[in-house]
């Protein structure tokens, strides 16, 4: 099978879902023409009437998906940029997350919200943000953030089949970053499981999205210096694979949590807290978090943006400090 990048993996998965189940439909801004990143390219033609352009109304895109799911449809909503999703925050958090709960499990809500997130594309303050921490705080919705084509494919498939609302985060820098033979590459098929992507005895890195690739690149460089890293691809942030997180922390006793989101209240704090609570005795060094600085938005200027985002060099530097502790 030919190798595909993340965008191709997503497009093929959407195409299959539309072919296999007539309850599936796609709704979003510009999706009929293929969307900003071309994720839905060609799908409107192949599935007439089931790939639906919406006006710019993010709250309603999500609310309409909820309503359609109430009638047994399997909506896949696309929010053009993750930065735009907050207009629909109420629909996701006040309504979608609670349907199973308020109906005592008599009802369920199968819907997916896909959205491109993250920086490194000079998108500035409204086209670059990390949004995961707002939504991982909300019990009742799942939050998935893959890094490799094969996982994007298998987890998007799992998200569409899931009876719960799933926020499917697509880091826009990963769209064309790597290719994989998705039929044969390792892929996680269950939401809620993390994967230990690389094993090394000196320290453990936790990451997701673009930062996972940066961690792997840093680990490669560090291996040349004799520092061996374990790298955990979290894949699913809510629910979180707590068992694998703790296991990977215990394996090395030194933990570096990396994310592109700003530090305070970021998802890394949750990882750090879990390890501190449940694996404290195994730690040989304070848990280290590497994240974007606490400033309101990803800056536009290329050098400022680079300063804002963690990357391979910053990760390697933090890892060296930690290894030497």
């Amino acid at each position: 099978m030919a190798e595909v990048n993340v965008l191709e993996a997503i497009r093929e998965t959407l195409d299959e879902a539309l072919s296999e189940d007539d309850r599936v439909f796609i709704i979003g801004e510009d999706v009929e023409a293929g969307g900003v990143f071309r994720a839905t390219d060609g799908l409107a033609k192949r599935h007439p009437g089931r790939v639906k352009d919406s006006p710019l109304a993010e709250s309603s895109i999500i609310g309409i998906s909820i309503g359609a799911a109430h009638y047994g449809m399997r909506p896949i909503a696309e929010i053009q940029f993750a930065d735009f999703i907050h207009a629909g925050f109420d629909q996701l958090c006040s309504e979608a997350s609670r349907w199973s709960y308020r109906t005592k499990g008599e009802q369920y809500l199968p819907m997916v919200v896909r959205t491109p997130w993250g920086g490194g594309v000079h998108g500035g303050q409204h086209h670059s943000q990390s949004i995961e921490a707002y939504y991982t705080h909300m019990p009742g919705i799942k939050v998935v953030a893959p890094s490799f084509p094969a996982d994007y494919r298998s987890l998007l498939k799992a998200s569409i089949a899931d009876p719960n609302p799933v926020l499917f985060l697509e880091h826009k820098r990963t769209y064309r970053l790597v290719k994989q033979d998705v039929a044969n590459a390792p892929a996680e098929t269950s939401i809620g499981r993390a994967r230990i992507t690389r094993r090394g005895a000196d320290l453990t890195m936790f990451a997701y999205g673009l930062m996972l690739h940066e961690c792997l690149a840093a680990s490669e460089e560090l291996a040349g210096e004799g520092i061996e890293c374990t790298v955990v691809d979290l894949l699913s942030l809510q629910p979180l694979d707590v068992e694998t997180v703790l296991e990977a922390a215990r394996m090395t006793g030194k933990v570096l949590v990396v994310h592109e989101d700003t530090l305070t209240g970021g998802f890394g704090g949750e990882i750090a807290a879990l390890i501190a609570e449940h694996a404290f005795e195994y730690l040989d060094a304070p848990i280290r978090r590497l994240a974007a600085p606490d400033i309101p938005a990803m800056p536009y200027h290329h050098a400022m943006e680079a300063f804002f985002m963690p990357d391979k060099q910053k990760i390697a530097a933090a890892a060296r400090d930690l290894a030497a502790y």
Partner: protein
Amino acid sequence: MSTETQTPTTLRGLTREQADHFLHQMVLIRRFEEKSGEMYTKGKIRGFLHLYTGQEACAVGAVNVLEERDKVITHYRDHGHALARGLDPNRIMAELYGRVDGVSGGRGGSMHLYDVEKGFLGGYAIVTAHLPLAVGLGLASNLQNEDFVTLCIFGDGSVGEGEFHEALNLAALWDTPVIFFCENNLYGMGVPFQQSLSTEISTLAEAYGITTENVDGMDVVDVYHAAKRAVEHCRAGSGPYFIEALTYRYRGHSMADPELYRLKEEVDEHRKRDAIQRLRSEMVEAGWLDDAGYQAVVDRVEREVDEAVAFADASPEPALESLFDNILAEDARG
């Protein structure tokens, strides 16, 4: 002339059976709400309680037009709509009490009733958040080539929210079978709706190209006929329909409302339009009802409401361990 020939077969288009049913439902809602208020002051019901007293004609006139396959989605002042849709009064009262046998097992309370089996998709207490959901139900109806209609009820307080405008635009754009039913009770909490809106409510709906009508929301027959036109319009695939029903709530916004924004005289003035008394006197005029007949309706309702209270009182408190159940649905269920 015999008595039989003097008795008309319809009352402004209602059959006698319908009129009996409407009268019973309106009296039931009225009494259920009064009793809920009593139980609130006794501490049996807690939190926020919003009574529907005065607005009965809206729920009864509109909901009764629907078929079984149609859907109702509504706002937080939802007891009347639930009762009109045929939800069990016992289970509604148990929900107000927060008991196991309540429709939501005590998780929802007054503002979050639902019964999906009955096509009652719930009360929503984030004002206007349910309007896009109604459009989604309408979209599903179209995508699946079904002909079910969604009755979406909200108050005048909704029209300032962005989602009101998004939903109207989308419903009209996609010709979704949604009846937007605005219960204009003149106040958003304590603010007269004119202070919240630069134009008329129905003008807004018309601006989106939606067929719109205004009705007297305290005349159950008028409401019924408007809703009937709306259902026919939606069922025929002609897109959404908008009804603005002018109504009035006799009680405060919630039990905690001291009602400083209106005079008692204003409330009394609106009570002269009372929907129950209007239908009652029309039925008397038609020879369909006498004092004994009306008293029989009141007595029946009294029994039903007493039974609901007894049921709620007897229902167990929910087990705290059940709090963790159903946070997520477990399986794909096809």
